[in-house]
Structures are given as C-alpha cells and as structure tokens.
C-alpha cells in the first residue's frame, strides 16, 4: 500500500454508524468527515457518548457486528477505500500493520496472563513472519524507544508487574511494532495520573517526529487536545460541529458548543472555590435526535430557526468549518448573550 504518497493519509467521509438498542435505533455517528494529513496529529474531542470512540473504532472495523444496524460512508486510507475490505483483508493489511490502536486503559488492554515480550512480538510475527527470537529482539528495541528501563529484563514481566504508565508505554510499543503510518489513540492518558500523562504525550510527540507518524487522538480533555494537536474536530451527538486548525478553533471558537466547552474548563487563574461553569441540560437521546440542530435546546444563541434546520459544516476563510446557523463571528445570534452567563 505504498502507492499514492500524495494526498491525506486518512479521509473519512460522511460516516454513519447506528446500533440496535432496547430503546430503539441509536444513531451514534451521523455523517462524520475527517481528514488526517501525513505526520499530523488530529484531535477528536467531545463529551461521553458523542461518538468519538465509535468513529475511531469504525476506521479499524472493530465495532461488534451483533447490534450494528448501519455502517456506511467512506473511509479512505492512503487513497484506498477500506469499507469494501473483508475481515481477512482488514486483518492482513490494515490492523496493526498500517493502522494501530492504543487504548484507554492499559490495565485491561494487555492480556494479564501473557508476558509482555510475547504481546509485543506477536504482531511482528504475524505481519512480518519473524521468528520468535527475531521478534523478541525487536521488542527490546521497541521497549527502549518507548523509554522502559532494562528492556531485556522487562520482556519476561507480566502486565501486573508494571506501573500504569509503563503499561501504556508497552501498549504504545505494541502499536508501533509493525511501523504503522497511523496510530489511533483512544483516550490514551485518561487512566493515568497527570505527570504520567505528560510523559506519555511527550513520547507521542517524539515518536511522531522520528517516524513521521500520523495520530488520531481521541480525548475529552480540551487542554490536552489544544496543546498537542495540529487539527481538531469537536463532536456532539455523533456530528462534527467544528473542525479546523487547533489554534484557531480554541483561540476563537465559532460554534457555541466549542465556546461553552472551553469555558467549562477549570483554570488555574480562577479564584479558589469559584464554581465551574457547566453547560445546562443534557445531550438529546441518540435514539431520537431532533430534526434541527442537536445542540439547540442547550444553546444560548439558538432561535426557532435552529430547531427546524440542521446546520451543515460550512467552511470559513481561516481553514475551519463550523456547523452552526449563528456562529460567534456572525452578528445574527438569536440572543447575543455572552456565553457562559446562561450557565449560571
């Protein structure tokens, strides 16, 4: 798959995913489009249930089929359409080989009864046909690269013998073992404490420079995304509401949801004991999404128009796209209240 080295590495277009649930059909992903360039870090933010993890896992076709009722749209990797790939093709050509995944909780994402050396070696044996010995030798290199001391000794450790941060480093070593072009990191630092978080993210930065790696970083942590990503997409109820260069999006959010999310962050400058701002209300049920803008019921800028018409992503001159009828740059806010006030 080394052809077509121009163009973006991953293009997701109009992705829809829906599940059968006891309450009806839950539309978890509703027309998500993403583009990840080579060597880029693309952040995917949103609250729980906004569809970010499902989007990430759909790219690798890791969604359980049993309750899946809809999965369409286009996923192009290196210009090649993945949605037509069979399970066998995905296994042999994509998973672990060109696209690898790092999971949220390294406590559960490593097999508790297998030595970590073997867990790192297995993908290489599978994809490159290396012998056990060759793969283990490479595993030592990988552990060195991800910053694990005494790597040769560590090969024989079981996951429970490592700290949380070390386990996540092992996960990253596994992900990198077959030299993928894209790493999908699904909340890679949520289960770790803050100092370890920073170390792991620094490691991602280093690896990305060394290997020209592209990363899809899924997180609900805005600060993390703002700091570490080139591009960002903000998701709400399975839709991208705002996307663009991370700096532009976070410095001057256009979508009211992005703005409110930012305002809800705890900041060190705040006086002690000031209440954190929240966004009132809750996201609509995924089984009965409104016809209009899904955020309208919670939005301070919404008017009756928003209830009826669903805004589409519209490109702005500064390279971002926003799905809102009344973005902050427009004067036509239903009620031009400064954001955040309504929250109190």
């Amino acid at each position, binding site marked *: 798959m080394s052809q077509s080295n121009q163009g973006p590495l991953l293009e997701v277009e109009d992705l829809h995913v829906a599940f059968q649930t006891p309450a009806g059909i839950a539309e978890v992903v509703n027309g998500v489009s993403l583009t990840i360039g080579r060597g880029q870090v693309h952040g995917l933010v949103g609250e729980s249930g906004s569809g970010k993890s499902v989007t990430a896992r759909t790219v690798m076709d890791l969604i359980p089929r049993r309750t899946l009722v809809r999965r369409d749209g286009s996923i192009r990797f290196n210009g090649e359409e993945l949605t037509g790939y069979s399970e066998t093709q995905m*296994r042999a050509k994509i*998973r*672990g080989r060109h696209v*690898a*995944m790092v*999971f949220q909780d390294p406590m559960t994402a490593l*097999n508790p*009864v297998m030595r970590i050396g073997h867990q790192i070696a297995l993908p290489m044996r599978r994809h490159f046909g290396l012998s056990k010995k060759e793969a283990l030798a490479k595993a030592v290199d990988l552990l060195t690269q991800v910053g694990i001391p005494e790597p040769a000794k560590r090969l024989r450790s079981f996951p429970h013998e490592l700290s949380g941060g070390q386990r996540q480093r092992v996960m990253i070593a*596994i992900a990198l073992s077959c030299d993928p072009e894209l790493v999908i990191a699904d909340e890679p630092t949520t289960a770790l404490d803050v100092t370890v978080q920073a170390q792991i993210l620094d490691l991602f930065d280093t690896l990305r420079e060394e290997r020209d790696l592209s990363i899809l970083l899924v997180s609900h942590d805005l600060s993390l995304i703002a700091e570490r990503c080139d591009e960002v997409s903000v998701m709400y109820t399975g839709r991208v509401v705002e996307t663009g260069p991370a700096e532009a999006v976070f410095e001057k959010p256009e979508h009211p949801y992005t703005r409110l999310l930012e305002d809800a962050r705890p900041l060190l400058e705040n006086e002690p004991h000031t209440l954190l701002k929240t966004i009132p209300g809750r996201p609509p049920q995924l089984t009965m999404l409104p016809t209009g803008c899904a955020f309208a019921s919670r939005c301070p800028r919404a008017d009756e128009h928003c209830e009826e018409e669903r805004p589409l992503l519209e490109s702005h001159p500064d390279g971002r796209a926003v799905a809102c009828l009344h973005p902050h740059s427009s004067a036509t806010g239903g009620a031009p209240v400064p954001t955040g006030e309504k929250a109190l």
Partner: protein
Amino acid sequence: MSGLATTASAVVVPTVGSKRRSRRSGVLVTLSWVWLALLVIAILLRPLLGLPDPNRSDYASIMVSPFSPGHLLGTDEIGRDILSRSIVGARVSLTVGIGAIAVATVVGSILGIVAGYFGGWVNRIISAVIDVMLAFPALVALIALGVFLGPGLFTIIIGIGIVASPAVARVARAATLQFANREFVTAARGMGATHGRILRREVLPNVVVPVIAYSTVLIAVAIVAEAGLSFLGLGVPPPASSWGSMMGTGRSALSDAPHIVLIPAAFMFVTLLALNFLAEHIGKRFDIRESAL
C-alpha cells in the same frame, strides 16, 4: 484467604501472597497432597510391598478383622486382602477420576469457549446441546453406553467424561464471556490477530484457571460416580477391585464384618476430602489473580 491484608499483599507481589496463606488451610493442603502422593506411591509400588495378591482367596482367614497377622486391614468374605484390594481400587478410582475429567475438561472447554466467544447462533446451538445433556439422566446414559461399548475402564472414563462435560462447558462459557469483551481481546483484534489466535493465546489462558479449579472438584464427583457404578455392578468387571464394588459385595456382611465396607469407604472419604481441599485452594489462588488485575 485470611483477610484484606493478605489480599493486599497479593496484589503487589502475588508470589509472596500465596506463601502467606493462613496456616491452617496450609496444613490441610499439605496433608491433602501427602495423602494423594501416598496413594500414588502405593499404587506404583504395590508389587514391591509384599502384600498378598488382591484376587487370591486365603481360605484360612476369611473375614478376619484388621491388624491380623498377614492381613493388615483384614480380609473380605472370600478371604481376599483388603489393603491390597483397596490399593488396586485406588488405581481404578484415580484413573477414572482423572481420565474422565480430562475428557470432560477438553470437550467442555472447547464447547464452552467456542459458544462464549462467537455467540449468536453458535452459542444458541451449543447451549441447547448442553441443556439437553444436563437434563438427560446420567445413570441411564452411562448404562446405555456400557451396553454399546461393553463394560470396562475405557467405557467408564468416556462415559463419565461425556456426562460431566456440559458442566465444564458452562463454566468455560461463563469465563469466556467475561474475557471475550475485555479490551485486550479487542486490542489483539486491532493488531491483526485471527480468531484462532485470539482463542488460543488470549482467551484460553485466561479461561483455563477457573476451568481447572472447577475440574478438580469434578474429579471427586467422577470418583463417586465410578464407585456408584461399581456398587451397582456396572463398573470394572470382577475380579478387578474398585472401592465401589468392594462396598457393593461387602454390604451383605455389614453386620458381621463392617470393616469390609468401611475400609474402602474410608479410603474414598479421605481421597474426596483431599481433592476438595485442593480444589478450594486452587480456586482461591484464582481469586487472587483476579483481584491483582
């Protein structure tokens, strides 16, 4: 497990935790191993022990009580040495217990893991088969099998193995369901692993622990089942002895010479007790590993 302190230390260094098990259960576990080891040694070295032939009748001493000269544990109603016969019976019991449960563990694990991992219609079919097998009266199945295959050790092992396999399958299925949705299975899939590899390398090693703990209990059940069959005369054909057949034939002389029944019964009792202690011990070790995750 004596309490939180032991669990906590087990979480940090499991190997140390398993050594710090409370002393009393430690002694029982040791005694259990010692008893089973003694049985195995006696079975292997019986020809060297200078005991009388287990099938030869000593007409000079019929139904003598234990501690008689030449017959440490006495003789039965036709003068055969009870110690000697009990040791031969132990061989039958342990062979059947371990052999049948090995069959049950292999068959049951495969069924349970496949059902639990693939789910859907595979699960429905296998679960239905398991339910039918559990509902079928085991004794009838064993008698029928004895008719088809002819009586003998092999028949009993296969028969009890098949009858016990649905129970193992249930445990294996439950454990598989618990592990198949863990993130590490998805992670393995995400790295390009095939179903076969996931079953062998990711699911099986995790499922083996609870299955083995349960199978140890089943060994005791299989020994009882074999004794029951032999008691009914459906076990290993005479003159070969088994604890069950010894109790079965000695029953008529129970009031005159109770030791003929009580000695094989005591052998069986202590063996079952030892197996149960060991099963419990293995089960506890499994708990520790779970909490350490």
